[in-house]
């Protein structure tokens, strides 16, 4: 009953606004493809760099909503977007298995790094990921977590598990920010904390500080730290309004030699942010 009253009111509101709003442009016109993606591809500027090229090659205008990977997957599940560009391989596989998406196309990777203050209070520099996390926990050094179910957050939770540490939650040294990657890095810097970030976003952060940021990379270069990005079209059988053809075209375009080269050429401070690997 309550729902119906609300629906009724909403319909009334819609009517009133549609009357006033006739002619306002629509994000879902033909020729636009709506994507849900992670904050890292947006914050680094990669998408703004690729979207005009995509438009030039295919005539499709790419629009995107930048949220954590968890939220991006949920938007796909709710049929609100047509394609996803995300980085949480295990969650993605489960997603495709459940029939929410058609197939995963690997596009590129970079790696996660553990950042910390220059004076490194828990002395983690040069240690393995496992030892570093154990040291942080033991010393109760501050650690800022995304805490938002994003790809980076999921990776961080896996790393705590691999280090044999019960996932921190209410510990006073553990700060779950619930915000995007750059925000979380900024919070970590303000709080003199460690954090886990993808290298792409870190380079963007470094660039914001003209190459001399308060947080620096302390742990890097292990196999466990690989960060894989993939494109998944939303399943048109579940979501009849999803633009599957355009989504597939996007996936193919992202995996094409030309785009892979563009991704490799995307640099800040002369550093490469993402490594194309569609062929693997």
């Amino acid at each position, binding site marked *: 009953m309550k729902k119906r009253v609300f629906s009724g009111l909403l319909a009334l509101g*819609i009517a009133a606004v549609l009357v006033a709003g006739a002619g306002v*442009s629509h994000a879902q016109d033909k020729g636009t493809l*709506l994507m849900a993606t992670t904050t890292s591809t947006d914050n680094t500027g990669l998408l703004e760099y690729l979207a005009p090229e995509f438009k030039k090659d295919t005539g499709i205008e790419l629009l995107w909503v930048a949220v954590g990977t968890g939220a991006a997957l949920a938007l796909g599940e709710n049929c609100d977007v047509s394609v996803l560009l995300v980085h949480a391989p295990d969650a993605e596989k489960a997603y495709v298995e459940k029939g929410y998406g058609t197939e995963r196309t690997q596009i590129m990777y970079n790696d996660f790094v553990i950042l910390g203050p220059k004076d490194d209070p828990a002395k983690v520099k040069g240690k393995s990921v496992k030892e570093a996390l154990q040291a942080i926990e033991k010393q109760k050094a501050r650690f800022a977590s995304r805490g938002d179910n994003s790809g980076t957050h999921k990776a961080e939770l896996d790393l705590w598990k691999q280090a044999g540490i019960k996932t921190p939650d209410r510990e006073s040294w553990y700060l779950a920010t619930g915000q995007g990657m*750059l925000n979380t890095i900024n919070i970590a810097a303000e709080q003199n904390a460690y954090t886990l970030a993808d290298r792409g976003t870190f380079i963007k952060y470094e660039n914001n500080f003209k190459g001399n940021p308060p947080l620096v990379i302390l742990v890097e270069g292990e196999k466990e730290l690989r960060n894989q990005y993939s494109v998944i079209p939303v399943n048109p059988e579940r979501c009849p309004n999803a633009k599957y053809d355009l989504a597939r075209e996007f996936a193919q375009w992202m995996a094409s030699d030309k785009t892979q080269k563009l991704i490799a050429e995307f640099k800040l401070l002369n550093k490469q942010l993402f490594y194309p690997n569609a062929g693997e």
Partner: protein
Amino acid sequence: MDYIWQGLQQAAILLFTLDAETYSAIITTIKVTFLSITGSVIIGVPLGFLLGYFHFPGKRQLRMVVDTLLALPTVVVGLLVYAFISQRGPLGWTNLLYTVPGIAIAEVFLILPIVISLTATAIEGLDRRLRPTLRSLGAGRVQLALTSLHEARFAVLIAGITAYGRAISEVGIAMIIGGNIKWHTRTMTTAITLETGKGQFSMGIALGVVLLLLVFLLNGALVLLRRRTR
């Protein structure tokens, strides 16, 4: 501290170089605000009038509900409207998610209580002698109601301005329903959130200054309008 000074300088640069992204966000903001104010005035003023003009059982309780809704958190409105207009929701067929009208409709729910409550208060606050005077002059029921509304027009304008202040400054709804899509649904407030998230604080401050200027200009226009109609 440099951020603030840089922000002010950048605000001037954005405005004078006719920066396309900034103007796109300004126009989206104006569209959303205009649509939501129009919608909520069309719905809210008659409802507020009914609430303030007539006496009926349960009026006080209804008034309390409306006044409580004045404190509706924007994210709650955003989330509820998302649940309805998501493709999986009952109104998914409207395709309103990630559109300007979608944001405006959600904001109608946010500011409707303001319009209703302040209109009702304005009508209640009219001179008590107004009704008997008009009646003794031979005014009919409809004339009586219309004259009351006319007498309360400035207070209703205040209701509109208050609602507009809330609509133009909110960010929760614009973020959830609009999705902050560049060139389409990015408003001033979501752009500021984004710049803050990217660590571009001076850019965020610049946009904040631009938003304040925008509010100042629109308010000035309303004040002029009020003077002219007097």
